[in-house]
């Protein structure tokens, strides 16, 4: 076991944010926007675009300054609300993923954002792709900045444009857990949000229930509004960054120190002005963090530092009275757990490349199994279906591991937003296709062996469908000489080939036993299958192993010939006279 301490980067990240100067830069634009003379007839959301040498800054502010109650009065709007009532929801449809079809946004924030809808194209045209972009705003203006950034993210091509940064000062929470989950699934997206919150500002806390701090126990469980992105929490004793959303909810409540003078949005703005200025001066000074005596760092001690930094812990003397401080102790334990879990899950993450070589070994085993079966004269499809030898049983284990890997892989790709998912798919599609062509026949064999019917419609696993669908985005290749010559080492391109064979065999059975009520229908199916095989051969897209003496396909051909009679002639029957030439690529196909 690794017993080394896991460090908390919160204070260091906060220091980096402050020393980089982005807070000063963005706040200056917010202040300028507020300083502008206000025209009474103006929109309730105003904006300002400031072009600077190294970046573009877009700031939003709400007018008239909306108080706490205004935000509280308006609850969530769900994405399933009928469209005519929420004109702006179509703008966020891209945020619904398969696992997350429904989500909600705070109504006040959404109404404000909806009011700038007509200005969106113009705003977007002012973004200079060669410069980095900061989107900012205070209070409800911050909420508009968040929604604007989300709207923008969908349209950005990250391969040519750098990620924007959304910096809010005292924005209320905006989304419910549905939308939070959707955004957290896109790690690069949530990395674009930085929320600055003062310990004296009531607005970011207004939508957290219950409204009477400190409520460290229940706050996170019952609350419908959820944070996302990174929060920079400020108090007189310093600032630190937090990313775990539970921790943020707990700390927002635990750090609140109410002051009557801060109920007015304009006063809150002044508050942030002072904070930004103060932090920027202090960043070149030694920090005053003092703590208990300890010689080697423990995880809990490091959490203590973070809390001390944001003013939750006093100097050592007061900590001696820890007995009276149970709430705080609980909080430390909780945060320690949450932060460790978040960091662990990030580190371990889903790293497909890590397991890839392991997966390749399993594929090598299958290749070997295929070769073994070929030597038995029946092909691995039929060998597996018969299940009569030891290798047929051993291979089940390899198949299981491979299937688990690719089910996870496809699931992961599905969870990602369209763009990130796409690049993910191109990287892994080759190996995925190989897997599908190799393994799906085994699933088909299992299914028909158990007496199943109509695999493609009723039983085919989702992940095969997805893998095939992604491949379809690419064009098919015309066979060249090399492909023909090496057809023996290739897998059948249509991984459902054997399901078609099984269906054709069922049709033959029905016809020969005269069970079928509709002979014409079965014959039509069979002719269709015939053409299908002919096309596969023409493109050299089917493995010559289907012609092995004991293969199901050859069984079908025998049955079919019997039904059709010896005089029957078709494209396929002509080819079947010389099928042994196919394996060497020398079969001439008209």
């Amino acid at each position: 076991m690794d017993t080394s301490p896991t460090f908390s980067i919160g204070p260091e990240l906060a220091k980096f944010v402050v020393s980089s100067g982005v807070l000063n830069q963005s706040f200056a634009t917010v202040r300028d926007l507020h300083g502008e003379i206000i025209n009474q007839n103006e929109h309730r959301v105003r904006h300002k675009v400031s072009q600077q040498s190294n970046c573009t800054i877009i700031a939003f502010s709400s007018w008239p300054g909306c108080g706490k109650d205004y935000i509280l009065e308006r609850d969530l709007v769900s994405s399933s609300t009928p469209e005519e009532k929420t004109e702006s929801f179509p703008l966020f449809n891209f945020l619904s993923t398969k696992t997350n079809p429904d989500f909600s946004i705070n109504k006040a924030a959404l109404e404000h954002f909806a009011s700038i809808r007509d200005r969106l194209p113009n705003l977007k045209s002012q973004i200079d792709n060669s410069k980095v972009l900061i989107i900012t705003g205070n209070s409800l203006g911050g909420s508009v900045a968040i929604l604007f950034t989300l709207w923008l993210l969908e349209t950005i091509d990250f391969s040519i444009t750098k990620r924007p940064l959304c910096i809010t000062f005292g924005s209320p929470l905006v989304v419910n857990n549905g939308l939070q989950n959707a955004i957290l699934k896109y790690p690069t997206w949530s990395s674009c949000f930085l929320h600055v919150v003062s310990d004296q500002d009531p607005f970011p806390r207004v939508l957290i229930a219950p409204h009477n701090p400190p409520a460290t126990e229940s706050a996170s469980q019952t609350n419908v509004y959820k944070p996302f992105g990174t929060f920079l929490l400020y108090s007189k004793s310093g600032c630190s960054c937090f990313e775990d959303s539970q921790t943020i909810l707990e700390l927002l409540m635990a750090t609140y120190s109410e002051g009557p003078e801060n109920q007015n949005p304009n006063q809150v703005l002044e508050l942030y002005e002072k904070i930004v200025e103060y932090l920027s001066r202090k960043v070149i000074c030694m920090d005053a963090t003092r703590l208990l005596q300890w010689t080697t760092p423990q995880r809990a001690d490091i959490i203590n530092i973070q809390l001390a930094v944001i003013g939750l812990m006093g100097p050592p003397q007061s900590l001696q009275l820890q007995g009276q401080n149970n709430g705080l102790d609980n909080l430390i334990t909780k945060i320690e757990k949450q932060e460790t879990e978040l960091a662990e899950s990030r580190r371990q993450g889903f790293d497909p490349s890590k397991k890839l070589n392991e997966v390749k070994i399993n594929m090598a085993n299958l290749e070997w199994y295929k070769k073994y079966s070929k030597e038995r004269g029946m092909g691995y499809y039929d060998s597996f279906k018969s299940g009569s030898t030891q290798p047929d049983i051993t291979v089940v284990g390899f198949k299981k591991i491979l299937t688990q890997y690719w089910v996870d892989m496809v699931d992961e790709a599905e969870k990602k937003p369209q763009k990130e998912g796409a690049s993910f798919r191109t990287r892994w599609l080759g190996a995925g296709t190989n897997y599908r062509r190799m393994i799906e026949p085994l699933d088909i064999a299992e299914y028909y062996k158990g007496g199943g019917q109509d695999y493609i419609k009723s039983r085919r696993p989702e992940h095969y469908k997805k893998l095939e669908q992604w491949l379809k985005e690419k064009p098919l290749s015309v066979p060249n000489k090399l492909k023909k010559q090496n057809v023996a080492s290739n897998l059948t391109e249509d991984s459902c080939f054997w399901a078609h064979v099984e269906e054709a065999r069922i049709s033959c059975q029905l016809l020969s036993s005269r069970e079928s009520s509709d002979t014409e229908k079965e014959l039509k199916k069979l002719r269709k299958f015939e053409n299908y095989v002919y096309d596969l051969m023409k493109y050299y897209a089917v493995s010559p192993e289907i012609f092995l003496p004991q293969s199901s396909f050859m069984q079908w051909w025998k049955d079919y010939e019997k039904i059709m009679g010896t005089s029957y002639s078709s494209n396929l029957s002509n080819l079947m006279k010389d099928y042994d030439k196919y394996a060497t690529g020398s079969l001439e196909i008209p």
Partner: protein
Amino acid sequence: MASLKVGENREINTDLIQKAYSLAVKAHNKSSQKSYILEKTGGSSYVIFSFPGYWSENDWYDGEPFGETKINLDLFPSLRSIGIDEHAKVNKVFLQRFVDKISRNQDFRKEAKNEKKQIVFTGHSTGGSVSTLATIWFLEKYWRSDASATSPLCLTFGCPLTGNHIFSHALRREQWAPYFIHFVMRYDIVPRILLAPISSIKHEFQPILQFLNPKSTRASTNTPPEASNFYTNVMKNASSMASHAACSLMGNTNLLLETMTNFTTLSPYKPFGTFVFCTGNRKLVILSNPDAILQLLSYSFQLDNEAECLDVAQRSLQQHFSYGNELKDCFNKLDALLLESLEKLPLSADSTTASSDITTINAALKDLGLSIRARLCLCAAGELEKRKIGNKNSIDLKKADIAMKYLEDYKLSCGRQGLGCYDAFKIQKSTEDFEANVKRLELAGIWDEIIEMLKRYDLPDAFEGEKKWIDLGTKYRRLVEPLDIANFYRHLKNDVTGPYTEKGRPNRYKCTQRWLEHAQRMPAGSCGESCFWADVEELRIKNSSKEGFAPFKDKVLQLEEQAKKWINDKVLDKDVLMENSTFMVWWKKQPETHKLASCIKDIEGFKITSV
């Protein structure tokens, strides 16, 4: 004769240090045209080269915001990461000055070459950067090739940072870092200047340099009014750089850090060698961990409180010239603390029950103004170093050599059956071939992981210089790469991706090839013997087309020459020449006239029964 302990088994005579400093300062004042001074004292065991500093803005920044440029690999072939082939960066003007004034200077070259005593290179301020480059040049040129030579020593005083993280990485890999000792006063601003981009100090830089220039006739000894702004801007940038580095040291997982990086410009420079920090009250703190040094450069430079800003700003300029007195005082009553095992650093300064060792450390850290958070950063730097060693140990445990043993046996058994292992593997007929394929994939897993770690610089810097690993990598490459190539052409991957050597070659082979080439000082690309089969396959495909032999004659000749050389050098296996190998089957198809004159026939072991 007192000496300063700067590391395990490394001590430096304090008289030498003081002498070097006085010569470094003397070099500034020398009015002659010479770009360096060579001091030989009879009876001493060393000679000293000292280099003057330069004092205009253009002597610091050129081009990039931080004035950096790619290193000149002709002069400094070692200054890169080997496997993934990233070149070090270095300050452009310092490099230019070294190239123009020193490395092209015939006198200097001659004097350095013929010197039998230990050479000490020294410099104060930017002179220190030039002496650094001179030392590396000497190491590359003479030390690397001559095992009997005396190692050089580089002593700098108040020297600016000179190279980036790869520069530092490469010096540690070559085991050269111990030859560099940098003395830094706690508040001396010069070693920190390059942490700030020129744009942030543009207004103040010229007057500050004017003040620092020992040659200029100063109107007064008063520091210029720009001092406060200059200090504040440099300190802010140092803090930004250090906090960013600290996040990485602590194993950051928050992607905001990455997003933020686009919104600020971070200095590429990184310390290397051993730093001796002078606390200002006759204590010395010595450390060699580059990550920790960077944190210390920032944290020890901070203000205690805002009120002392002007005072510290003035000191940050004055201390640049106080090395002489400070070192003299320090050496009188040697109070030096060697900071090792950083991960065990005491974090609390208020400890009362601590042992005397800890009390000493606490006192020294307090003198450098290190808060708990600063200590945590140093601690994290120590942990990172420990983690890198842990990573290396975990690779050692994977026993790559055992899996390789199986493949060696496989190769022998193939030979006994009359088919080289390349061809046997390509045909994949027997169970052994299959088992070999599984072993190949297992090994690929181990080596891919190593390469991933190299890319992230997650292994100790010395890793790519370790003979054991270079040998293992070479053995692995020669044994297993042919199997990868066989697999590649068996599955016709060339059809999809193009030739193996261009598109299909895994990094694990490219890296290990570069390791060997670097270790043996051979030109890049000269150890391509493990790709031989891919060359054969490609030529075979081209050659079988209708165009016939003529257009490929040069290529065929080249391939034959290489085969002969590599087989004679015993780096390519003789199974190439087996009767039914892909190579021989192809060769036999070449025109009779060509075959008669071919050099292949001269290879020992060549025999042909039927043509």
